[in-house]
Every structure is written in structure tokens, then in C-alpha cells.
């Protein structure tokens, strides 16, 4: 151990660079002389040497099978690590190569040289090259993000350019100004963007000699590691789990940081040359670096013993301002679901890392988690005495290892109309009345409520020390809920918009240990489902009306409309290990249950996105396939069924196949689906508030008409659209008829019902006309259409007869007249035909 600071003279004095293979078995170094060295991990043996034709190497990147080496003569050469020999010249530029990065899947290599463009070459097929050209000056460093879909190019003009490689043509995503320093190509100082292993952020040396973290979702500057160096930073490396960071400076300093607190853990003073490249070993507590004197250091047990455990914990998150995940961990919710995060929003890229980590953890076995100071680093609480815990833990883990523990996947609770944190803001509620959004100000939040109708209501804004995380808004008031904290239990807060007394807002505290999982607000009541499995119903002025235990729990969400309350919960487990969602609709005032624990119809693998009541008061759901469904006949127990209103995948605007967009549901009103169009793979709306769009309903009866404009197609299109119109208008009619029959309907609603009934018959009449035009042989179908008519007055059948006459279908017209006559005397009732 004492001699561990022995330098390994790897190359001729001068700049040297290194790279670990992803599995950590081998370490490759390059330098000024014409030889590459391949060190075996955990071996004191002399390294293997690959003699090469080039010298003055400036860059190296390794995968398990091969390495890429960039040299001053502008060549990037691929050497096999299996045979330790040269394979091919991958790419050649006219000027010296400065940096090489390989994508995590090993398929692509980004090469920065003193030429203006960065080349991204396929490592298997060197004829496939993408060029990144948006930056005006040569790039100094390149780095791939964790998913391999983005490249951060640190340019010598002092800007970081982020390109997206997910499309055929690389696209510039963001130009980040004011982050890195303008550096010379050959400077020892670095401006390399280093991606944090959780993939949500990268960090780069700033001009103030700090190490600045930048979030990936909004490219805003986040936390920084400050005050570690008196000179520019020359190299930096995150530990494989992102919990530790090492930075080295041109002032020959080397500093170890803790990511979570951005605290300097240790400053090393035994560095005698400027470190140019540095990497953690992928699994062990080993840091290797090369300096500008051609030397390699492999420092075992690099992190001091008291911090070494930080290397063994699970993946840590990048330090961000106002990080929502910090809030969640404050609630100390255990990850009880397999792979589903406590906040229910799984980001892309996470799965990948978690997969890797899970593997690593299972290999390392029980002593991987060692939470000896009880600081809660490990997810699994281990608060017993140390010795006892160990003796039990070891064998147990081994026994558990072979058979994976089966756990059902439950649906996480969600609040309809809200979005997760992004940056430091989120929408708590977004509907047709207005929207509520909150901004995280570290110590408190600021909540803003804005209305669409500015004449009716006045926008308001308040400072929120309780950190409300759920809200509902309607014409009458705003309802908020906050989780429990050390100062207070979970709180419900209702604020009416206008009163004729003094302000009557009220708060109510939930019993200790109970958290609100979802809330809803209607014109007459307030509903909250809680983690204790209760449904709590209050009046608008805070009188608790009733409370009961939800039959299917844990609760997923709840919505309400007037006196109707719909709660959704996790029911029995289905074949795919996920729970079936069950809903219950009840009328609170009449204390009637309309539907009890009925199944929320979702096909396999499709998740519930949103639940809301339509403007007319029918429950609607929107699923992750983009289908909007409405509940028919729900006022009669056992009769309810889900009817699709619109499949957004068949919308005309998507027919060209060029657009990639999704729809974030807002409401169903005016017989239209109101939503926010999200482009470019976004999942949630963000600021500034996007415009609402609306789409007409179109029940997916038949496939969407394609663009061919020939005659037969035009006929078919007309017929299809009429058929669709028929199904839709009969659905609308049945919805309004239910309403009229079951409630004290107003006169206008009754009028609307009869109007819709006529509408159904009108569509049938049009269909009949189409059939009549088609020809004599379609007479049977035409007659069938005529029998479908409700026709209370008898006028519709008369009109149908006239239509048949106009097209000279005499037999048909005769049959229709007969039908009308039989109806008139009551010979045909519903069951016949």
C-alpha cells in the first residue's frame, strides 16, 4: 500500500491519455511514442504493448472489443483488444485529432479534430459518417450522453453545442453560452462536458474554475462544485454511481467531491504533474490518471475509507436546483414496486442504467449494501446492530437470489391535469377554467392561479410555505393539498373565488401518517383519497360529509362532477402482473352507488393517462394509446360500458406520417376533445402555456380514408363518414336520454334529447339516400336502414319513402310505406324484425 503512488512510466515524457474498457478489465494508455499499452486490471504484470506506426497520440477510447486511437497526423485507428493488433483506419482528418468519444452501445464514435466539423463514424462500417457542423470553430472535446442519442461538443469558441443524433441528420439541440471558457486547441485545461451517470445532467469546467452542472431537460445551469481549484480544471470524472466526483486542475491539484452536497471531501497534494485524463474503475475503488509527463497512476483505494461506501450505493442523482426527487426522498417512500419510481414518472434512460446497476448489485451480493452509520444511503433499512445484521444478511441474500420475488405492479396515484416538475416549475392543474402552477423557490413555493375568463375571475398569486403538490380548480374555488412534513401533517386547503361574507377559505389536517393521494373538486363537494385507503368527502365549506374505506386500494385517482364522485383504485392482479383498475361512481347527495367496482376497460399494456368528467357530466378516460373513451349507461348499475369517442392515432393530421406528436388531454366539452398538442416526444406541457387545440370526435368505425381521390373511394368515404355519424349521434342521444330519464332535467336538455333523436334519423335518411343511389340491388340494405329509424312522428319514414321514389326504387318505397303503416298501428315492436 505504501508504494501505491509509484508512477508507471507508460510513455515518453509528454501528454498521455487513458481509457478503461467498460467492464474494467483492461486499461489502455497512449502517449507521444509509437506504442500503446494495455494494462490488465488487478495485475502487476508488465502491460501488453501494441506497436503502432503513428506517434503523438492525443485521444483514446475503448470498448470491450476494440480501442480507437487518435493521433496528431489526423488519423483515428481501430485496434482490436482481442488480438492486440491494428484492424483498420477508421477515419482520417487533415488536422490533429483532439478527442474521441464512443457511444455507450459502441456503435458510433465521435471524433473532434482541429477541423471545423465533428465526425460521428460508425465503428463497424466506416462509410457511415454523420457530420456535426453547427459550431463555427474547431471542437476541443466531445462526449456522448448515457443514452447515446446526444453529443455535447465543447467548442473552442467558449460554447457547448449539444447535438441530437436520434434523427438521420444530426440536429443542434442547444447552444449553451456562458458555461465553459474559450480555450486553445492544445491547452492543457479542459472544457469537456462530462455526463452524470444518471443521464439527467452533464457538468463542465466553467470559466470561474468551478465544475458546473447543467440539466438536460432545460439546459439551465444547476448546482456547481465551487472553490476547489486555483487553476483551470484539466480533467474530471464522476464515479460510476455518480455519488462522487474527482476533478484535477492545471495547478496540480486533485479534489474529491461528494455529489449530493457538493462538498469537498478531500484534496490530494501528492500530484506533481498536470493530470490530463482521469477515469474511475467501473466497479472498484480505483482511480487511474495520466499526466503530461507520460506517466500513468493507478491509485487503488482512492476514496478514503470513510467515504468508500459512497462508491457502493445505488445510482445517485445529479445535483439540481429544486430537484423534485429530493422532495420524494424526504417522504421516505420505499420503492415497493419493481422498477417503478415512487413519483411514477419513469424517464427514458433510467431503465437502462437501472438495468446495469441491478446486474452489478446482484453480482456483488449481500455486502454490497453496507449502511453502517445508518445514514440511509442504502434503500433497504438496516438499523439493527452491525454484527447481527451481517450474520443474517449474508445467507439470506444468497437464499433469495435464485428465485426472483414476485410482486404485483400497481398503478401509481396521479392527479388528473397535473404535470411533474420540470426545471423548477410544474402545473398543478390545467383545465378549461384556468390553470394553477407552482414555482419551487427552495424554501417555499409560489403558486399562481390564472383564469381563461378574466372578466369573471381575477388571477391570484400567493407564497406557499406548505409546498402544495396537488390542486383542483373550478368556477367556484381552488382546492390544494400538501404532503406531510416535519412541521405539519397532510393538509387540504380550499379557497373559494368569491364570497359574500369575509374570506371563508379553510384548511383541514389529515390524521398523522395519512397522505393525500388524489383530490377532486366539484360544484358541490370536495373529495380526497388517502394513502390509508380512505375516501374523505367534504362540503365546499369544510363540513365533512362522509368517509369510507375504498374497496379497491391503493387509490389511483378520483374525479367528481356535481354530486357524482368517481374513484379509481387498484383491483385484483391480472395475468401480466399488473393490477386491474376498478372504478366506483356514486352520488353523494342521494347516497346511491351507480357503478360499484366495475372494471376500467384497458387493453394489455395500456395505461390510464387521465380521467375527467365531460362538460355534460359523463365520465371519460384517456389512455396511453391515445384513445378517448366515454362511459355509457353509467347511471344504471351493471349497465356501464366504455365507448371510444376518438382514437388520436387515426387523426388526419397524423396521416402524412411526418408528424410525431402526442396529445395531452384537458377536457371534453362542446362535443369536442380539448387537448394540448405535444411535439417532439414531450410528455407533458410546459411553459409558456401552450394553446389548447380541439378535435371533433370520430369513433374508429372504419380505417381512415386514404388520400386517393378516385370515385369509388369518395363514395366509400361519404358512406363511412355517414356510418360513423350514425353511431356517434346514437351514442350522444343515448347519453342525453340517460341524463333526462335519471335526473331532473331542464327543459333545454329535454329539447336537446328530441333534437338528437331527430338527428339520428336524419343521418339514417342520408345513408338511405346513398344506398338508393347505389342501385336497385341495395334495396334490402336500404329497407334495413329504414327499419332502424326511431321515427316517433312518422314523418321520417314518409321522407324515406319519398327519397326512394326520387331514385325510382318503387318496390323499396312500397315496402317503406308498408313499414310505416304497420308502425302506425303498432304492429312492429322493438323485438320483432
Amino acid at each position, binding site marked *: 500500500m505504501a508504494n501505491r503512488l509509484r508512477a508507471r512510466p507508460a510513455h515518453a515524457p509528454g501528454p498521455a491519455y487513458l481509457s478503461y474498457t467498460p467492464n474494467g478489465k483492461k486499461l489502455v494508455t497512449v502517449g507521444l511514442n509509437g506504442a500503446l499499452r494495455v494494462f490488465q486490471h488487478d495485475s502487476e504484470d508488465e502491460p501488453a504493448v501494441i506497436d503502432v506506426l503513428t506517434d503523438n497520440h492525443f485521444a483514446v477510447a475503448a470498448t470491450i472489443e476494440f480501442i480507437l486511437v487518435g493521433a496528431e497526423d489526423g488519423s483515428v485507428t481501430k485496434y482490436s483488444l482481442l488480438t492486440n493488433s491494428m484492424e483498420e483506419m477508421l477515419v482520417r482528418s487533415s488536422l490533429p485529432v483532439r478527442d474521441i468519444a464512443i457511444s455507450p452501445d459502441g456503435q458510433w464514435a465521435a471524433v473532434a479534430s482541429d477541423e471545423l466539423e465533428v465526425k460521428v463514424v460508425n465503428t463497424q462500417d466506416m462509410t457511415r459518417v454523420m457530420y456535426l457542423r453547427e459550431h463555427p470553430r474547431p471542437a476541443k472535446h466531445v462526449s456522448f450522453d448515457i443514452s447515446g442519442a446526444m453529443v455535447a461538443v465543447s467548442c473552442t469558441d467558449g460554447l457547448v453545442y449539444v447535438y441530437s443524433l436520434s434523427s438521420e441528420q444530426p440536429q443542434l439541440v442547444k447552444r449553451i453560452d456562458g458555461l465553459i471558457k474559450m480555450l486553445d486547441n492544445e491547452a492543457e485545461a479542459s472544457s469537456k462536458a462530462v455526463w452524470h451517470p444518471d443521464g439527467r445532467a452533464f457538468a463542465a469546467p466553467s470559466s470561474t474554475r468551478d465544475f458546473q452542472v447543467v440539466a438536460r431537460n432545460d439546459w439551465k445551469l444547476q448546482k456547481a462544485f465551487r472553490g476547489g481549484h486555483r487553476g483551470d480544471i484539466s480533467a474530471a470524472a464522476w464515479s460510476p454511481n455518480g455519488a462522487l466526483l474527482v476533478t484535477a486542475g492545471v495547478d496540480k491539484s486533485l479534489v474529491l467531491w461528494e455529489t449530493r452536497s457538493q462538498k469537498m471531501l478531500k484534496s490530494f497534494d501528492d500530484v506533481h504533474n498536470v493530470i490530463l485524463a482521469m477515469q474511475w474503475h467501473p466497479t472498484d475503488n480505483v482511480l487511474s490518471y495520466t499526466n503530461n509527463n507520460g506517466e500513468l497512476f493507478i491509485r487503488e483505494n482512492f476514496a478514503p475509507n470513510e467515504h468508500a461506501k459512497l462508491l457502493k450505493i445505488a445510482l445517485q442523482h445529479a445535483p439540481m436546483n429544486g430537484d423534485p426527487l429530493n422532495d420524494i426522498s424526504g417522504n421516505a417512500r420505499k420503492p415497493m414496486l419493481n422498477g417503478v419510481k415512487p413519483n411514477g414518472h419513469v424517464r427514458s434512460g433510467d431503465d437502462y442504467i437501472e438495468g446495469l446497476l441491478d446486474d452489478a448489485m446482484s453480482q456483488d451480493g449481500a455486502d454490497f449494501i453496507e449502511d453502517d452509520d445508518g445514514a440511509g444511503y442504502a434503500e433497504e433499512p438496516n438499523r439493527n446492530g452491525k454484527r447481527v445484521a451481517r450474520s443474517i444478511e449474508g445467507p439470506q441474500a444468497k437464499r433469495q437470489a435464485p428465485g426472483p420475488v414476485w410482486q404485483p405492479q400497481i398503478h401509481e396515484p396521479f392527479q388528473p391535469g397535473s404535470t411533474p416538475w420540470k426545471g423548477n416549475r410544474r402545473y398543478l392543474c390545467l383545465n378549461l377554467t384556468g390553470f394553477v402552477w407552482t414555482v419551487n423557490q427552495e424554501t417555499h413555493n409560489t403558486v399562481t392561479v390564472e383564469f381563461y375568463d*378574466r*372578466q369573471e375571475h381575477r388571477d391570484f398569486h400567493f407564497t406557499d410555505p406548505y409546498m402544495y403538490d396537488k390542486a383542483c380548480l373550478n368556477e367556484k374555488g381552488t382546492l390544494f393539498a400538501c404532503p406531510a412534513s416535519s412541521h405539519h401533517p397532510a393538509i387540504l386547503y380550499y379557497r373559494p373565488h368569491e364570497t359574500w361574507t369575509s374570506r371563508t377559505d379553510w384548511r383541514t389536517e389529515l390524521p398523522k401518517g395519512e397522505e393525500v393521494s388524489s383530490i377532486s373538486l366539484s360544484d358541490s363537494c370536495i373529495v380526497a383519497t388517502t394513502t390509508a385507503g380512505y375516501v374523505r368527502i367534504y362540503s365546499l365549506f369544510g363540513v365533512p360529509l362522509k368517509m369510507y374505506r375504498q374497496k379497491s386500494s391503493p387509490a389511483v385517482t378520483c374525479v367528481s362532477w356535481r354530486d357524482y364522485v368517481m374513484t379509481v383504485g387498484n383491483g385484483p392482479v391480472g395475468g401480466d402482473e399488473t393490477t386491474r383498475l376498478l372504478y366506483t361512481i356514486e352520488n353523494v347527495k342521494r347516497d346511491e352507488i351507480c357503478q360499484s367496482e366495475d372494471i376500467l376497460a384497458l387493453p394489455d399494456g395500456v395505461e390510464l393517462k387521465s380521467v375527467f368528467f365531460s362538460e355534460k357530466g359523463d365520465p371519460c378516460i384517456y389512455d396511453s394509446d391515445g384513445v378517448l373513451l366515454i362511459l355509457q349507461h353509467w347511471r344504471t348499475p351493471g349497465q356501464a360500458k366504455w365507448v371510444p369517442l376518438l382514437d388520436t392515432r387515426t387523426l388526419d393530421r397524423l396521416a402524412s406520417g411526418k408528424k410525431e406528436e402526442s396529445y395531452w388531454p384537458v377536457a371534453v366539452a362542446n362535443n369536442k376533445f380539448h387537448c394540448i398538442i405535444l411535439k417532439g416526444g414531450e410528455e407533458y406541457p410546459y411553459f409558456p402555456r401552450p394553446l389548447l387545440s380541439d378535435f371533433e370526435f370520430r369513433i374508429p368505425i372504419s380505417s381512415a380514408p386514404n388520400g386517393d381521390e378516385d370515385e369509388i373511394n369518395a363514395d366509400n368515404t361519404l358512406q363511412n363518414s355517414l356510418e360513423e355519424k350514425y353511431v356517434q349521434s346514437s351514442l350522444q342521444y343515448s347519453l342525453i336520454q340517460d341524463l333526462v330519464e335519471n335526473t331532473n332535467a331542464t327543459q333545454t336538455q329535454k329539447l336537446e334529447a328530441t333534437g338528437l333523436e331527430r338527428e339520428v334519423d336524419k343521418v339514417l335518411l342520408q345513408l338511405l339516400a346513398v344506398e338508393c343511389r347505389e342501385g336497385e340491388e341495395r334495396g334490402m340494405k336500404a329497407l334495413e336502414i329504414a327499419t332502424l329509424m326511431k321515427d316517433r312522428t312518422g314523418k321520417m319514414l314518409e321522407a324515406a319513402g319519398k327519397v326512394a321514389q326520387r331514385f325510382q326504387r318503387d318496390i323499396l318505397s312500397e315496402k317503406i310505406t308498408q313499414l310505416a303503416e304497420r308502425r302506425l298501428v303498432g304492429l312492429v315492436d322493438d323485438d320483432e324484425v
Partner: protein
Amino acid sequence: MALPLPPGLTPSEVGFLCEMELVTVIPRQRLEGLELLGGPTQSLNPPFPAPLPLWLALLLKRQKRANISPPPWLSVEGLSSILQFETDNRTAEVFSPAPALPQPTGFGSRHDAYLSQDSLEFSPPFLADSSTTRSQSNALPYHWLELGHLLLTHASDDFDDPDTVRRLLRDLREVRMSKLRKGFKVLDAGAGVKMNGVGGMEVAEVRGFVGGIVDGLRKINRSREESRKEREAEERENGLGSSSYQDDEDDMQL
């Protein structure tokens, strides 16, 4: 004394005509439907968008009672794709096409729609939805320049990127004006310039110039014309044109 105005419409008159176009507004407060000369308007009910005539929309916008949502063609993507069409070498000769015409109204079979009595065929500037959010994103309607100008002046805060839109509009205007001017080079007594897709303001702008040229050409050619007429008159007097004279008589009787 007659007004010293050139023949045709002045720009402000064209702008005035453009104000009858319907645009989509997002109301910020309720308003009952109004009975206007141009037809009743929809009642406004926030946040549902509604089509309103431009003049009313601008009035409401000025009073901060509504936001105007610009038509799809008046966006950076729409305008840049049209500009690309205009400047592309392959299509450099023609103007970008006007919006697609709607199907003629009228019943009966599709084939004789054109002939049927109750059929209506719409053409610019009377197309519905040419400037609402339902308009085509890749075609400039008849009143594009005036409408773009009015919206950018009075409702620039409703645009995502008003400066780029303004720049693109100016680019488009310059490209199309240069095309029009190029067309004048071939103007002759009998020649014509194809002006499909040209907007109202552009027509008004070149009307004076083109009208002047064509009139001038007519004057130059007048002597020839007159001699032709004289010759015809002579022929008629000589009895050769009696048949045509007879025809005229018949027309008179009808």
C-alpha cells in the same frame, strides 16, 4: 373636382377590405353573439376559440379582451416553406399556389355539379377559413400581406416569434415583387403575365404601373387599331359585312 387618386384601390382601401376576413380569436371574457351586417358572430366563451372578422378581433385585442391566434401559414414553419418554394430554382418561375378551392356546393351527382343551378363555387378572396386556424399552412391566401401586416402591428405578442415572421413576410414580399417585375419585361400589347396566387395588395401595388403600360401600349397601337376599324367600316358599307349587321339586328330584337 375629382379626387386625385390613381385608378384602382389604395393600400389602405385594400387593408380595409381585408378586415372582413375571419380570424380565430381566443376570448378572454364572455360576449354574446352579435348581429353584424356580414352575418351573426359566434358567442364568445373562454377558452374556446371562435372565428371573428378581423376588424372586431383587432378591436377586442386592443381592449385586451381577446387574443388572436395567427393562422398556420403565418408561422415561421409555414412561411419558410412557402419562401423555399418561391426561391427554389425549379419553381422560380411561378408564384406559390393559392389555397385549395373548396368543393362546389350543390347536390346531385358529382359530375354535373358545375352545371347545376344551385351550385356555388368559391374563389379568392371569398374563401372561408383562409385566415383562421383551420387554414392551410402551406399556401398564402388572397389577403396575406395585409393580414400579416395588421396582425404583426396590433397583435405581435400573440406570435411565437414575431420578428422572424416579420422578416419572412418581408422576404416573401420582395421575392414575389421581383417575380412580378420580371413578368413586366415581357409585357406587350398581346402578351400576358400569369398571376395565379398573387395577393390583393400585390395586385393593387402593380395595378397603376401595369395599367399605365398597357394603356400606353394601347395608345401607341391606336393608329393601327383605328385604321383596322375604318377598314371594317368601309367593308360594311360596301355591303360585305351585311350578315354581321343582320346579327346585330337580331340581338337588338331579342
